[in-house]
Every structure is written in structure tokens, then in C-alpha cells.
């Protein structure tokens, strides 16, 4: 114990001073956080108690009172079991997709099936479910839907872009390079503005597409450019000999890519793909700016509409920050685990 303290905290004068200083600061911060967030906090939805505790304790009552609106946004209250079930289903599928034993061709078919069920549940209109228009969708289900569909939709597009960027045909190479660099050079907000202001102008007259779909297309186009670079990294890691061996076997370009190159390239960049998924998950918060009520937007919706709880927005922010953190942290842990797996296989 004493030796551990010596080596890790007090091995010389400088480190001892740092330890004492940081330790004091940390202790101070932690006791205050404990006092505000837990000890003096109000856990029931009682506006008077919250008002009395202002400044000394947090009012988590805002979360217990408003959590349904924060999580599900404007979705009709009585029907909220539907987004709950649909999201659970989608998350189970995402979890399964993260496990190697499920990486089979039927997984793609399963994705298609689950998406159909997801939309049927959310939108309704069949099996006696009432119709809930997409502008009523919101909260966590919308966040998860946007994040997962953006990555799933971007995946095939990004494979073509990555292959195109490596292609020997100059015109195709230039087109793909220009696309990737163009999208990566501009902020996501400007692409979302395009979805909200310009896509309606792009469509033939009398033809309008749903705002959710427009935003989804924008997110896919954006995510694909970044994902394409990740996949290109994987393609570059494949030794030349693999291409030559495939050609000498008489495989055509697409056979070679499908059977030899892509499986190896994709396997090496799984951590990169996961990181892409994490940033897309965080990026979904931006759709608030073009007025879709995903998690960040639905919090505004829940808190701003009610003068009783308007003062406790910080607690609401901390609540959804914890949700985002939970998702992103687990995803990044998973991606580190995959990285270790890949490295271990390389050693053997």
C-alpha cells in the first residue's frame, strides 16, 4: 500500500505537490457535486420543493415529471408503447449485428424485415394501429432511427465511393474523389440546410417528400463520404499480391472485390466503422436545428412549454447527456474490444 502510494502519487516533490493540489480540488468538486446532485437534490416532481432547494440542490423532479416527453417527443401519449417496442427491436438487431456469429447473409434480410416492422409500428395504419405521421415522431426512437439508418444507408454507397476512389479509371476516380472531398469540406449543418431548404426545390412540381426522409437522405449522403474514407483505408491495407492472385485465378473485378478484397478490407476497419457510427449518433442532435424533435429537440419541447419546469433545464440536459454518454461509451468500448480481437488474430 505504502509502496503503491509512493510510486504512483508521491515519487518526488513535484508529484507530491501535484497530488495534494489535484486531490484537494477533486475532493472539493466531488463533495459539491454529491451535495448538489444527490444529497440536497429533490427527486419528486414538486415545483415548490424544487424552488426551495434552488441553488443548493438539483431538481431531478423535472425528469420524473417529463421523462415521457423527453424520451418520446411529440408521439401521442397513449401510443408510446409502439415506439418503445419498435426501438427495442431495432436495438436488439443492432446488438446482434455487433456479434460475429450473426455476420451471415440472412442478417441483411433480417434488417429489411425489422425495418418494415419498425415503420409499421411507428407509423401505424395497419393491424388496427392508428396513424401517427412522421412529424410526430421524436425523442430517443428518432435518434436511434436516424443514426442506424444513416449508417446502414451510407454503407453500400460508401463501398462504391471507396472502390471508385481506388479505381484505375480516371473519370470514375475523379467523380468519387470530388464527391468525398466536397462533402467532407462542408459542415453538416449546411447539408441539413440543403435538406430543409433546397431538396423541396429539387423535386418536380407537386411532388413533396417528408421532412424526416429529406433529413435522412442528407445524413446518409454526409455519413457516406466519411465512411468511404474509412473503407478506403481498409482497401489500402490489402497487399498487392491479393489482387494479383485473384486476377490470376481468372476472377472478374466484381468477383475479386466481393470474394477476396472487400471481406478482408472491411474486417480490418470494423473499429473505424464503429467510430463513424458513434459520430453519426452524436451528429443526429443537429437535426434539432432543422426542427425535428429528436432527443435534444424533445427536451426543449418538454421543458420550454411548461413555466413550472423551465428553470430546471440544466437537470434535463444532464439527463439526456447521460443517455448519449451511455450509448456512445458502450459503442466505443465495443469498438476497442473488436480492435483487440483483430490484432490478436493478426498475431496468430
Amino acid at each position: 500500500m505504502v509502496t503503491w502510494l509512493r510510486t504512483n502519487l508521491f515519487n518526488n516533490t513535484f508529484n507530491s505537490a501535484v497530488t495534494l493540489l489535484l486531490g484537494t480540488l477533486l475532493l472539493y468538486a466531488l463533495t459539491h457535486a454529491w451535495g448538489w446532485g444527490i444529497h440536497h437534490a429533490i427527486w419528486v416532481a414538486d415545483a415548490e420543493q424544487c424552488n426551495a432547494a434552488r441553488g443548493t440542490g438539483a431538481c431531478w423532479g423535472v425528469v420524473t415529471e417529463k421523462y415521457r416527453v423527453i424520451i418520446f417527443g411529440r408521439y401521442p401519449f397513449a401510443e408510446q408503447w409502439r415506439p418503445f417496442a419498435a426501438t427495442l427491436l431495432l436495438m436488439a438487431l443492432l446488438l446482434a449485428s455487433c456479434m460475429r456469429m450473426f455476420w451471415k447473409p440472412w442478417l441483411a434480410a433480417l434488417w429489411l424485415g425489422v425495418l418494415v416492422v419498425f415503420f409499421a409500428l411507428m407509423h401505424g395504419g395497419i393491424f388496427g394501429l392508428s396513424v401517427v405521421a412522421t412529424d410526430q415522431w421524436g425523442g430517443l426512437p428518432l435518434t436511434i432511427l436516424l443514426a442506424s439508418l444513416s449508417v446502414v444507408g451510407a454503407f453500400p454507397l460508401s463501398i462504391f465511393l471507396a472502390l471508385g476512389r481506388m479505381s484505375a479509371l480516371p473519370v470514375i476516380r475523379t467523380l468519387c474523389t470530388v464527391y468525398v472531398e466536397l462533402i467532407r469540406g462542408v459542415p453538416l449543418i449546411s447539408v441539413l440546410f440543403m435538406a430543409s431548404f433546397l431538396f423541396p426545390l429539387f423535386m418536380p412540381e407537386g411532388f413533396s417528400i417528408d421532412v424526416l426522409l429529406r433529413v435522412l437522405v442528407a445524413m446518409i449522403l454526409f455519413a457516406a463520404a466519411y465512411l468511404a474514407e474509412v473503407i478506403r483505408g481498409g482497401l489500402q491495407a490489402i497487399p498487392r499480391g491479393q489482387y494479383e492472385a485473384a486476377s490470376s485465378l481468372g476472377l472478374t473485378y466484381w468477383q475479386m472485390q466481393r470474394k477476396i478484397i472487400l471481406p478482408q478490407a472491411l474486417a480490418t476497419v470494423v473499429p473505424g466503422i464503429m467510430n463513424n457510427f458513434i459520430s453519426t449518433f452524436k451528429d443526429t442532435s443537429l437535426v434539432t436545428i432543422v426542427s425535428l424533435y429528436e432527443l435534444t429537440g424533445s427536451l426543449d419541447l418538454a421543458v420550454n412549454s411548461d413555466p413550472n419546469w423551465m428553470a430546471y433545464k440544466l437537470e434535463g440536459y444532464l439527463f439526456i447527456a447521460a443517455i448519449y454518454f451511455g450509448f456512445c461509451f458502450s459503442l466505443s468500448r465495443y469498438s476497442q474490444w473488436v480492435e483487440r480481437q483483430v490484432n490478436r488474430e493478426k498475431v496468430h
Partner: protein
Amino acid sequence: MTLWRNQKIRGWIYQIAALLLVALCVAILADNTLENMRTRGIQSGFGFLSQPAGFDISESLFGFESTQPYWKAFLTGLGNTLKVALIGIILTTILGVLLGVGRFSQNILIRGLCLTYVEIFRNVPLLLQLLMWYLLLVEFLPTAREAEPFLGMFLTKAGLTLPWFGDMPVKAGFGIKGGINVSPEFLALLLGLVIYTASYIAEIVRSGIASVPRGQHEAAMALGLSRAQAMRLIQLPQALRVIIPPLTNQYLNLTKNSSLAVAVGYPELVSIANTSINQTGRAVECIAVIMAVYLTLSLLTSVLMNAYNRRAAIKER
């Protein structure tokens, strides 16, 4: 048939087909857009840039009045973007390098705190962090009347007031006089960008240092250098080669992410463009301006950083 089997000819057919397809898509979209604009009576063209903007901009480097034309408003926005990006890049580099180097400290408290920092700030969306900083700044700080100076500075709901060329800020009635005032919008954006981006730079610096062989550290120790000297003179310079390319990306990300200012009301380029779209309806032109400016900025940053990267790269024969 034999033509089809010729790889070269097939390649040309693919390329021509791709070009035609892209051209067709562009033509259809352009045609639809022009048609829609005509039926809805939307005027097009960049002529509006010389008309008076009619809105005020809360902060600008060289002053802006609502009677000045749109192009000046855009320029003011660009100035504000560059201001926050430049200051942000400097601060985030300092913080990020400190955090990254801190992961190699002998002191477990420093190591732990740096790791916790990285994990927390990397895994919460930047927009949410910005909104939280803004809320903290405008809700929980004292008003100018209740404020107490700290090292000659005032931090109040109205922002941060700093001494400027010997001009000390002092409390005067309901406000603070003198010094230079930094708005809470700018402060929130800067805090959010710096704290978020630093968590990424910390990881880049950490992996860069980790890529330097351990023997280099041991050799430096054997030469009698202190740990701080070894890090500064031996390990960091070699790590720079690994660090610079991803660091460039983070600088670009910071600049692009400054566009989230639209959510806290700091008048940078995107926020000004958004206001202009709402006032004039010239969405195509305003979005084109945003994209052109950011593409130029990206290009400039990569050119500069590539030049620096060439200098830092290993010189081989």
C-alpha cells in the same frame, strides 16, 4: 462481342456512362429547381448581395450596421467564424497536448483525470455541450451589479470583461465600464469547441507518443535528461510525424463545428446566412456561399498543414 471483352474499351464505356448519369442527374435537378423557382416567384442570382441587409449583428470585428449590404454581413460573419476558429485552435491545441501528455504521467491522479476527461467530453454531442455552456453562462452567473472582480476580470451574465491595454474594467451603476467585453455567445461557443475538440486531440497526442519506441525514452533517461526534457526534446518531436495529419483534421473539424453557433446565437457565417435565407428566401445562393467559404477554408488549411507536415516528416534519401 470482342469489343466488350476488351478491358480498355469497357473501361471507357463505364466512364462515359458514369459521366452521362451524373450529367443527367444534375440537369434534372437544375431543371426542377429553375421550374420551381419560377412557379413560386423566387428570384435568383447574387444581386441581393448589394442590397441593404436590414438586420443588426450583435458583434463584429469592424462594426456593422443594418443599412450596410448583405455581402458586408457575410464578411462580418466570416470574420466572426475565423475569430472563434483561430482562438479555438490555439487553446484546444494547448489543452489537448497537456491532456495527451498527461496520460503518460507517473502520477496516477493525473492519468486518471485525463482519461476521465477524454471519455466524458468525447461521448456527449457537441451541440448539447454548447447548449449547456450557454445555459450555465446566462443563467447561473451573477449580474453585473452583484459581480466581484477576479484578477481584474468580471465574469457576469453579460459575458467576460477583460482589461485591455491598461484600460481596467470597473463597475459603474448597472453595468461594467471599460476593458473589453467578450459576449456569452462567443464564450459558450469557444468553451464548447475547445473542450470538445481537446478530447480528440488528447487521444491523437497519446497515440502519437505511444508510437515512439520505448527505447527512445530509455535512451533519453540514460543521457540524464529529466522526464519533462525527454518528453519535450525526444518523444514529442518524433511523435509529431504521427500527430500532424489527424491534428489537421481536428482543426478543420473545429472550424466546421463553429457552424453550430446558430444554436446559441453567435453571429458567425452560417448563422448570418440562415438569417439571410429567412429574410430574402435566396436559399440556393446563401447555401452556395456557405459551402464555397468552407471549401476554401478546408483547402487552405490542408495546404498549410501539408507544407508543415513535409517539414516534420523524416528526411530520407
